[in-house]
């Protein structure tokens, strides 16, 4: 399954509750579109975030974000180098 990256920026730092609520909002859509959340990285100043998903294509992840009302800057397919 391809890895899809979502880049987000925030005007003001989101609280833990905000992030949890965003996660809860998108969860139901993940199943329908065949998307699985893998991990997220939040910058120290809480203004930038990168989320990694497994999905059949980038558009499925975009749809999940939009259905859930979660904002994002870019969505792109990539590969993980470890």
């Amino acid at each position: 399954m391809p890895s899809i990256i979502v880049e987000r920026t925030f005007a003001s730092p989101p609280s833990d509750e905000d992030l949890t609520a965003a996660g809860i909002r998108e969860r139901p859509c993940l199943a329908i579109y065949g998307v699985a959340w893998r991990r997220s990285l939040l910058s120290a100043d809480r203004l930038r975030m990168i989320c990694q998903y497994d999905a059949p294509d980038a558009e499925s992840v975009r749809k999940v974000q939009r259905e859930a009302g979660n904002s994002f800057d870019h969505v792109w397919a990539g590969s993980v180098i470890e």
Partner: protein
Amino acid sequence: MLGVVTIVGMNVETRTPPMRLRNAGDGMSIRLLGEIRVQRGMNNVTLPASKRTRALLGYLAATATPQPRQALCDLLWDGPDDPRAALRWSLTKLRPIVNDDGIERLMSDREHVSLSLGDVQLDVAIANSLLPADPGDLELSQLEKVFSLLHGEFLDGLDLPSCYRFHHWCLAEREHWSATRRRVLALLLDKLGNNPERALPYARAMVAEDPLSEVSHGSLVALLSKLGRRKDAQDHYDYARSMLRREIDAPLTGDLQPPVSPQRPSAPNIVKVPNAHSDAERRPNLLDLTREHSLIGRSGEMREISSSLEALRSGSPAGSMLFVGEPGIGKSRLLEYATKQATREGARVVSSRCYEAEAVRPFGCWADALVSLIDATTDSSVRRDLSVFLPGHEVAANDDGSRNRLFAAVHTLLRSLAVDQPLVMMIDDLQWIDEASSALLHYVLRTSGGPGNMLFIGSARLDEIDENPWCKRAVAALTQTGALKRIMLQPMTADEAAQFFEPGASAGRIAMALKQSGGNPLFLTELAKTDQLDNVIPEGDLDTLISDRIAMLDESERELIVFASATTRDFKPELLGAAMALPVGQLIERIDRLERRGLLKPGNEDRFDFAHDLIRQTTYRSLSQPRRQLIHRQIARALEAAAQRDETLSGELAYHAGAAGDHGLAVRALIAAGEHSLRLFANTAAIDAADRGLGHLQHLSTGPNRAHWHIALLKVKVFAAASPGIRTRPKLYDELQRAVEAAELLGLRDDDAALGWHMASWLAQGSNDTIGAQQAILRAEELTRPMDDFTRCQQLASTGRCLLEVEGDVQRTRIFLRDAERLAATLGQNFVELEWGRGLIARWDGDLAKAQESMRRALTLARLREDRWREIECLVWMAKIAVECRQTNELEAFCSEIDLVAARIGDGAAPVADALRLVGAMIDGSKVSKLEVEGTLSALRTLDDKAQLAYVLNQIAQCHLERNQFEPALAPATEALEAARAVKRTTEIVVATSIISSIHAARGNVLEAGSLLESLKNSVDDFSHLSARAQDCLTRAESSTGIPTPVQRAIPHRAVSISKGGF
């Protein structure tokens, strides 16, 4: 590449042409099609006996890329032992096989393993290099060369159903190579239209490859008829008609026609094939001969048996023993000998055997052995405790039993039986024992060396003991404590080998047979048979000799034995009768004949078994993958009803359903098998069943069934993990959470979702995540409370629309949307999602005018609410509907609006609008440059929107096809198919396949076209609910190929109202 491939021609009409990869000098070659084989020059290299090690070699060779160690461990050693150590051991075995002095092909570091085959001839790589994108361009001789390479199933014999990841990968590869073989065969038959004699072997191969294709059978009957073989043609016609009617629930299409008399009465150059039946009858019955032989050699082993029986009779501790050796070395014969001796001396013998595919029937060998004894026992408590072994038994929900109590009950039963009469317990083929049976065997034998007055004798294949951790552990532990003695069976000596031959056989021939067989008694028996007839020692291994014997059977006997070879264990005649739709009388008569030939033997409880498991394996390997699937499907159907009454059959049903590619049935059966295993306290088997079920689940589309089954499988894993026997809790929380949320979204609230949250709470608690546990419990509680109508209506409409977009479950979508409509009417509200969903349903049904109306209302609502994303989505759908109506002016208007809204919300350019605009230009017949098309598609690819990409590519391909531009149509349709498969969009898969099929038909490759449409049946989940657009494309493809397929016949005809004829 071509220069090193030599084709050995065919000489027998009924055989497919054999293939050999020959290397100049001592070069290495690896063959993956057929049984995996490594050759150096012309010599075969002996491969490790371990199946997993051979599978590892096949996987590394086929994938040809570095593989992470962890991935390989997950693939083949996903068990309780140390997988990394097992992988290291296998790599150690493979290095001397593939590496040479100074050439290290198998390389590994801490993280990765790779096999570099730059200088090695690999059959699949050669086949791929010979096959161009369109094999139709190949000359006849080239096609024949390619076909000779495609001989045999991919990694034949390396079936590892317990390694479900490898199993599914291997099945997918087999399907790929089977499809390639069918494509090449279709082309060969097409090119050999004027040469029926040469075409005949290929027609037979086609029937074997694709037994459900009426066209294939029709071609064979026509060829036989052309060759003047009217009786053969008539026989095949009768057989094929009856089989197809039974298998395909629809009238035949007419491609299979009765044979017609040729204008000339006979063809001059027909090779006369010997009458198989009479020849087989004439030959002496060799396996029978083995049975009639007194046991040859084995005097030491017989003394061991006699001495143990003597000890048993005198009440002294009897030494339990385990005979080990290679297949065919005579282990089972020694058990038969021991049975006769023990019975003669007045002992009670309880015997059973383990079967390879039986891992999800916990206590399988014990249940078989004990079932009659449990019925007979008068001890009510033992009877109650052991009743779980009886077929159809239900365990009470509040049963407080445990595995220890079960084991103690078995011990008590055996001890009580042994008081009255010495008891001999025998288990054959212990290398396939399941975890639960192994634990019970260990318990019984270590408890005071077994119940008093009892002797245990077992047998196992030496090289496969280490493959099965349960067998390995039990045998190691029992031999270490002295409870079991391992006795290795040695090959026959020259004097012993001579006793297999008639007295007049020459010493030279016996020596040659001994060398060829390596002293294996079963092999010697087969060689002795051929020696009697021909006074020569034939070349070939034991498999070849057994294959020749099977090939000599008549059609009816062969049909029965191939069905029997697909069973996982000894079989009941009624099961085979039901699977083959054969009347009891005929069935018994055929079994009787096969028994007289020494191929089958009677077993316990009115069952029959193969005289030797090698016969089963060899027969099964002779079947093509599609034929195997067909047989497994028929057996699964026959088992399905019985499994509902007797859940001990669930594991068997799951095996057959999985092998048949019926993933839904396999998942259901594995859930039942997992639950049954839990009731038998066989938690390892339960986890194994659930893992296999999860493997099959991946093949199913999103929808309520999948969500329900997902939770049921996870429930089995969670419950199995709740046992103190499992040391570490599985990391299931994330997967369970996803499954529960999907169930919740699909409306499975009260049962599945609430249960799932309760399980999630338990798992979170176990991980010391108190907050997570509380949240899960609260969610479970919320689900059981009623939801307000407004929220419910929105959720129903949104779920329905989403499901329809991904083509998840259209029937369920209709229900959701109807419920949402009713609620919306009560509330006096309308929602974007509801109108959007209505529009998509109308488009699905082919009512494009109604679809446009609903989408227009959805668009208005989205604009009113300033919901820009939904506005763009509605516009894209309206543009697509305009494409399908061929309304290019409207299309252009919608594309411009998409651009405007996208610019307004800062998304920049909208590649989808550009792509749809391009389609519009092509529909209008405007000149569009290649560069322009590539640029537009490239933007869509970069966006990585595979669903839209598939749609646009299909539209482009269709535009080319309508103008008879076949070459430009093929590439976009092929790419569309790949993209659609990645995102599982059924409609685009069907449309792309239909276009490719129409291209083949237009080029005259009618068989290939038909075969593609047939293959849709395997790649698409539900053919009874296709969209109108997909149905329309199929109908066009049918009319262009002239081949009505079972796929199309399975679809009820429905009037489709597409205003204009676009795809």
